[in-house]
């Protein structure tokens, strides 16, 4: 009886871990794209497209094995027998978030979709296990991210790494990639579609403009000890953000996408410097949606849409606002750094 109670307690703990794991994806509520999806949800078929993209990206982090929450060393010290561990192993599979999603999909949209979700989860788990055994595969690909020369380059690499450890760039990549493929597939495309999708791609990445320092977690304290001025740190981080954005929007609408990104940086600096928000790796970036995310979204779409009509004066105005923002918030960072 005591053993059964032990197993149930263990499963209950694993259930709590799984539930917390799922709740950690609530960070999407602070992602600017969420605001946009909520807006387009007024037109259900458009919302379905974005919903599918989010689901594809979420499939990887949601395909977890709850037993991984129990460290091997701890497992081996607990007084449970082989059969008891086997029971925990089997039941724990039902606690994986991907199984819940599979069941929900099966009940609402048919068993084939449910089976596809659970099957994908199993394949992803197997791939993760294989990757763990290969040297350099567990995050090793991040080592390929290059560092441009100098202090600016070293911080740019750090920023790219931080960004690539969140889900935002992957949503942006799927948005940009799928639109590009569709555009070059020969199927009819609305003339405005590439520009709009470039702006949506920029929006998917724009929450990062609010967490330029928070993305480094405990490491952000290191900037206080570096012999660099605030503007130098912000500039390096901005350049990294814009370079990644430029690659993503280049096949769609380079000018509109990058200028939209600059607008989101001008507003994002305020939150980045005044409210350093640490981020959880492999989740969506969580910023301050209201009012800053909303302001970023409006500015990004306004600037990105107007650039063709207004041309050089708008570009010059945006660049001036950006440089001013880097200088002002860089100074603010220096000022606050000495006041902690």
């Amino acid at each position, binding site marked *: 009886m005591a053993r059964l109670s032990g197993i149930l307690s263990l499963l209950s703990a694993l259930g709590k871990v799984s539930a917390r794991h799922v709740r950690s994806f609530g960070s999407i509520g602070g992602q600017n794209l969420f605001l946009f999806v909520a807006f387009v949800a007024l037109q259900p078929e458009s919302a379905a497209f974005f919903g599918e993209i989010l689901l594809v990206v979420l499939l990887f982090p949601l395909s977890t094995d709850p037993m991984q929450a129990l460290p091997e060393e701890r497992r081996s010290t607990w007084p449970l027998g082989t059969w008891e561990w086997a029971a925990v192993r089997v039941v724990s599979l039902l606690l994986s978030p991907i199984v819940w999603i599979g069941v929900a999909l099966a009940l609402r949209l048919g068993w084939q979709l449910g089976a596809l979700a659970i099957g994908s989860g199993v394949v992803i788990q197997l791939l993760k296990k294989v990757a763990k055994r290969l040297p350099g595969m567990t995050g090793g690909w991040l*080592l390929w991210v290059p560092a441009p020369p100098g202090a600016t380059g070293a911080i740019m690499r750090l920023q790219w790494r931080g960004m690539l450890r969140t889900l935002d760039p992957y949503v942006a990549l799927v948005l940009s990639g799928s639109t590009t493929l569709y555009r070059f597939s020969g199927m009819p495309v609305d003339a405005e579609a590439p520009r709009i999708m470039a702006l949506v791609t920029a929006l998917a990445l724009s929450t990062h403009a609010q967490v330029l320092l928070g993305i480094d977690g*405990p*490491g952000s304290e290191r900037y206080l000890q570096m*012999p660099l001025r605030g503007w130098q740190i912000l500039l390096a981080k901005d350049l990294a953000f814009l370079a990644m954005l430029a690659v993503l929007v280049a096949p769609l609408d380079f000018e509109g996408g990058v200028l939209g990104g600059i607008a989101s940086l001008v507003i994002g600096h305020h939150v980045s410097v005044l409210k350093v928000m640490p981020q959880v*790796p492999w989740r969506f970036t969580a910023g301050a949606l209201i009012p800053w995310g909303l302001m970023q979204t409006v500015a990004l779409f306004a600037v990105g849409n107007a650039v063709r009509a207004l041309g050089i004066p708008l570009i010059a105005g945006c660049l001036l606002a950006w440089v001013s923002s880097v200088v002002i918030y860089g100074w603010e960072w220096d000022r606050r750094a*000495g006041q*902690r």
Partner: protein
Amino acid sequence: MISCRGLTKAFGEFQAVSGVSFEIQAGSICALLGPNGAGKSTLVRMLTGLMRASAGTAEICGLAVDNPELKRVVGVLPESLALFDALTVGEHLELTGAVYGLKTSETRSRTEQLLRVLRLEHGRNTFIHQCSYGMKKKTSLAMALLPNPQALFLDEPFEGLDPITAETIRVQLRAIAQRGVTVLLTSHILSLVDRVADQVVMIRRGEVVLDSAIRDLPKSLEESYFERVETMTAEDMEWLGSAAS
């Protein structure tokens, strides 16, 4: 040289550090001792310009603590270690070299030596979030040493390290102090402090209770500590061990 006069830090009503004054001569190693929560880390943060003092002044190597140039002359091992999860051990040192404007070849050569001396070579390409606590501490320490600072602030440099590395660091600290570097460290490992420090400053509840050269202490460091800073008390947990009898 490091000097502070009447350094105070208040958080609302609570005074974490009150009126602390002491001086450390160039080329000396001073150990700042005290129990957890005594105000050691707050004091170190104020001396390195990471926290503004509520009152008092401090100078490091002739520079006021609010002088931005201070960051170029001090090396800091912070309590939080302040490392980046997205970088490997080796990349932390590359970043430090780049930020302090060292030539790539110089950074590379210093990195090689630091990794070797601190026995970190095997972890060079390991991401920080995959490192043990000891490896993280050594990485943060290597970052403090790499720019060749004139003053070093080390918050618990020996804690969490294996004895060989701790002893290696002790020997290195003695060597760099002889070359004129001023070192302020905090630690709870009194046996190591006894062998590395020239001076000891003990604080309790934010106030200095002893400031003396180690050789001038009337009793052993350990005895002085327990006499001035904390007394030993341990409640007996009678239930513990009852299953064995």
